[in-house]
Every structure is written in C-alpha cells, then in structure tokens.
C-alpha cells in the first residue's frame, strides 16, 4: 500500500510545504486534471467507488453527479470543505492537515474543477488554530505559485477559510451551510439537496477533508489502483486512529478494511498495563460499540453495515475494563444533550432526559423499569428527527444498553456502581 495521504511522515516532521510536496509528485494530479474534461474527472471518481470519509460513507461520485449542469443553473457554485471535526474521539483531519496540507488543497481544487465551482470555503473548527496557520500558509504558497490563477486553472476560483464559532451540529452538511450563511446551525430538510439549493440557494458540494485528500491519487493512479489499496471492500487507504487507554494512541494511514486488532494492538501498542479491552466505538462517538468478538472484523463501510454496525470516521475509541460502561454511556449522552441544536423536540427534550436517567443509574438511584424505559426513549428519539444527529446519539447509547445489559441491571439492583468501588479500593 502506498501512503498517498500522509506520504511516509512521522507526526514530528512538521507539515510538508510546497517545495517538498511538488518534489514528491504533488500537484501533478492537478496538472492532469486541468487537461481533463470536468465530466471525465467526475466519472473517474465515481468509478473509483470512493466513499465519503466524514462518517456517513456516501459515494462521492454520486454526490458530484448530482451537481446541476453549470450552463443551465445560476452561479456562483460552491464547494465546501467540511473541516468541522467535532465528532468526539476524532482527530484524523487535524492530523492530515498538520502533516500534509497541500494534499487537501490539491483535492479541493480538482474537485472544484470537476463540479465547476466558483468559490470554495474551508469550514474549520474554531479550536484548530494551529491548523488554520498551516492551511493559511499553504494557501499563500499556492497563490504565490499561481495555482489559483485563471491562466493556470482555466476557470476563476476563489478560496476562503471560515473559522467556526463552535457547535457539533455544524458538521452536518445543511447545518454547515446555515452556519456559513451566518445563521444558527440548524439542519435543513432534504430535499432540496445542497447540490440543488445549498449555500445562498446556489448549487453546493460539501465534502469531508479526507475525502478530498483522496482525489489527487485517484486522478494520478486511476481507479484500479485505488481499489487495490484496500484489503477488502470500498477501496483506498483510510486514516485510522485510536484513543483511550492504549499504549501509543495516534493516527495512521492504513489500507481500508484494517481491523480493530490491527489498529489497537499493532499500531496503538495494545492496552496500557492494568487495563483490558472491553469494547470500542469504531469511528467517533456516533457509532455502535463493538465487543471482543469483532476485533477481526474489517473496518470498512460495507462490511460493518452487513454486521449492523457503522464505520463512522475510523477513529477508534477504546473502552477499557476499568471504566464503568454506565458512566461512559452517561458521558456520551451528556455530549449529545449539550450539543443538540434544539430544532426537533425528541432530540432537544429527550436527550437531557436520557442523560439524567443514566446518571441516576450510575449514582445508585435507578429503579426497576429504568433500563426498559431507556431503551424505549432511545428508540423513540433516534428516528424521529430532522437530521442524523439524534440517530447518531442513539447508536452508541442503544448498543451500550444491549452489550452491557447485565451491568446496567446490576447497577439498578444493587443501587450502586461496582466499578467505582473497585477503583477506590485499588487507589486509582
């Protein structure tokens, strides 16, 4: 496998800036794309089977093909790079930008050419100040080299960075559009899809950072090569990461379809001394817990879907045996209750309620029937809202309720948290 996203970098090398990027073959794909027809680029990406890396795994080519014919629709057309990355446990896009910012920009410009966008925005989360600095420097470099000029590209293209003021909701593509319009980041109902009616009512493509970063290699090496990089299905390389009580948490570019065992034990160095693996969320908080029986399941979109699971962002969060699953679930619920945009009643009112019930159980105030009530509430909240936020909230909570049913019921029966007592006894 070729590391086309991160090259062969170690996290301490500092970002690859333009001279080295070009020396390593960077912007050759842009040159090639400039000589291609927009439709050809879109067809190539479509045939590669590239799936969106932001979490949902939606086919990228399908999104591009949905952009209307530029001759019959109004301009400007927008391309938005979703760099919100507020999914708990997710840090892959930050890692990529701090190491190889130009691969993102090259992908963005090629995508702009393919969908004939006039203006691009990088929607960056407010806390990523270091990332902003690196991206601003990289953009200044390509401007200096004339890579954003009409004479080079054959079309006019404006590129801006927007710093978000912080809210998890902004990662949802229609909420992101509202945020860019200077509004509250509530989601919009679909249809119309952003391709038809997006930013300021114009055709808009929203794409995750890592998705765009995959484009240059696809243009350079073709679709067969891209598919051959994966171990199993879905094609390409993937940025996998791991956090939690592992020895060497981090982020690595691995073949798509790598397993939890490889990510946690081979690259993450295994569990810290004194901690055992209990379960893991495979890709950020909005995914379902996977137990030890799934350590060898390939982590790709289609395989996990076949197992009734989801891939999410590919950044694994490990739950160890010393952390109470009830407390961890309450923590997840707190996040969603706090970050819900409040647009839909089940999500706004239901999630704080679920959180309170989980805290009650954790602190020994649970009563018989609470477990069943939680399941009922979560099943009610998940599907009955505008956007995928509530469904995302329901995945980890419901899967924890299923996987750790005994632990939840023991908390209720005993009226206390057994993990906490063990922790105190061990002096941790």
């Amino acid at each position, binding site marked *: 496998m070729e590391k086309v996203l991160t090259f062969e970098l170690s996290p301490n090398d500092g970002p690859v800036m333009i001279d080295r990027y070009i020396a390593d073959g960077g912007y050759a794909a842009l040159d090639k794309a400039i000589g291609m027809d927009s439709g050809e680029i879109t067809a190539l990406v479509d045939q590669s089977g590239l799936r969106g890396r932001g979490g949902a795994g939606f086919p990228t080519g399908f999104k591009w093909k949905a952009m209307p014919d530029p001759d019959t629709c109004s301009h400007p057309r927008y391309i938005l790079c979703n760099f919100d990355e507020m999914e708990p*446990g997710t840090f892959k896009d930050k890692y990529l930008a701090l190491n190889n910012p130009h691969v993102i920009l090259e992908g963005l410009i090629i995508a702009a050419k393919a969908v004939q966008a006039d203006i691009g925005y990088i929607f960056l989360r407010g806390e990523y100040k270091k990332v902003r600095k690196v991206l601003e420097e990289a953009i200044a470099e390509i401007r200096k080299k004339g890579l954003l000029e009409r004479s080079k590209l054959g079309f006019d293209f404006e590129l801006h960075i927007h710093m978000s003021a912080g809210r998890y909701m902004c990662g949802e593509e229609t909420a992101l559009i509202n945020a860019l319009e200077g509004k509250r980041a509530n989601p919009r109902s679909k249809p119309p899809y952003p391709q038809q009616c997006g930013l300021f009512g114009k055709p808009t493509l929203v794409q995750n950072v890592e998705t765009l970063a995959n484009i240059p290699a696809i243009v350079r090496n073709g679709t067969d090569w891209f598919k051959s990089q994966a171990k199993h299905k879905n094609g390409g390389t993937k940025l996998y990461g791991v*956090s939690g009580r592992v020895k060497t948490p981090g982020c690595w570019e691995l073949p798509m379809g790598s397993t939890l065992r490889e990510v946690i034990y081979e690259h993450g160095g295994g569990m810290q001394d004194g901690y055992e693996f209990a379960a893991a969320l495979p890709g950020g908080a909005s995914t379902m817990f996977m137990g030890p029986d799934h350590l060898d399941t390939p982590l790709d979109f289609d395989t996990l879907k076949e197992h009734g699971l989801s891939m999410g962002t590919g950044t694994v969060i490990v739950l160890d045996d010393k952390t109470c699953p009830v407390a961890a679930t309450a923590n997840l619920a707190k996040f969603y209750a706090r970050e819900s945009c409040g647009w839909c009643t089940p999500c706004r009112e239901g999630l704080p309620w679920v959180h309170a019930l989980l805290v009650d159980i954790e602190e020994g105030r649970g009563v018989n029937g609470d477990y069943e009530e939680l399941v009922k509430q979560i099943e009610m909240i998940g599907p009955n809202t505008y956007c995928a936020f509530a469904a995302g909230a329901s995945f980890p909570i419901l899967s924890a309720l299923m996987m750790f049913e005994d632990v939840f019921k023991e908390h209720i029966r005993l009226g206390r948290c057994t993990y906490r007592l063990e922790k105190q006894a061990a002096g941790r």
Partner: protein
Amino acid sequence: MLTKEEKNKIAEEMSHMPSAQASIIDALNIVQDAHGHVSDEDMKELADFMQVSISELESVATFYNLVFRKDPGEHVISVCDSISCFVCGSDEVMQTFAEKLDIRPGETTKDKKITLLPTVCLGYCEKAPAISVDGEIITNVSPEKAREILKDLTGGGS
C-alpha cells in the same frame, strides 16, 4: 467600543459575502478576539455597523459555544469532558481545577482571574486528557499538571 481596526476587519469579511448576515459569525469572532467577549454595547454597535437586527445577532451569538456574551475571567480554562478524555481521567482533572479554584465548572473566581468551563471534544483525543487555556491546547493533563498550570496562571500563588 469597536475600534477602527475591528471595523475594517469586519468590512473586509463582509466584502466577499453576498449578505451582511453571512458575516455575523466572523464579526462576532473578531470582536471577541479583541475584547474577550461580546458585550451588550458591542452588540448594539455591531448591529448598527452591519445593518442587521440585534435579535438576529443575539440568536447567532447564543447558539455557538465559542462566543461569550458575559465577560469571562482574565484566563479561560476549558476542560474537555468528551468520551476519550473521560476514559483517560478528565473528571479528576476537572475536579482538581474546581477544588483548587473553589468554583464549579461554568463559574469565574471571585477575583475575576480564572473562568473554568467544561468543553466538548477538542480533537486532541490521542493525547487525552486535553484542555484549552486561553485558546492554547495543552495535552496529557494529569491532576499534577493541572496544579502546575494553575500555579503558572496565578503567579505561583495558591
């Protein structure tokens, strides 16, 4: 009071947006960067300058986590309490800050020196627990490290 420099920056942001409203978040960021928060007076002035209504500004300002409508302390400590940091002991870090400062998360010390906030995932999960002090990220924070950070902020006191 908005300075000329802030107004110039806001005007620059507005120049590449098709509507005034679209620059509200940038404008709030600019004012907050300069003053640490967005005061009622600045909201009024901003509304006048941008030609948007105060209620529109307020609806946006109150939605986003990083816009402060109240004056925080001299330093703002935000402790990530999302899942990766939680698993790695962020509760103990938050508890250490709260005990040492004698305030609860969300409050400011009486001398207006430090505001302590819980925050959502900062994106530094590989180096959990992570906190942000005045916008600078500090990683792998232990209770001991938290005490040292406080010492540095309060000039060796406490």
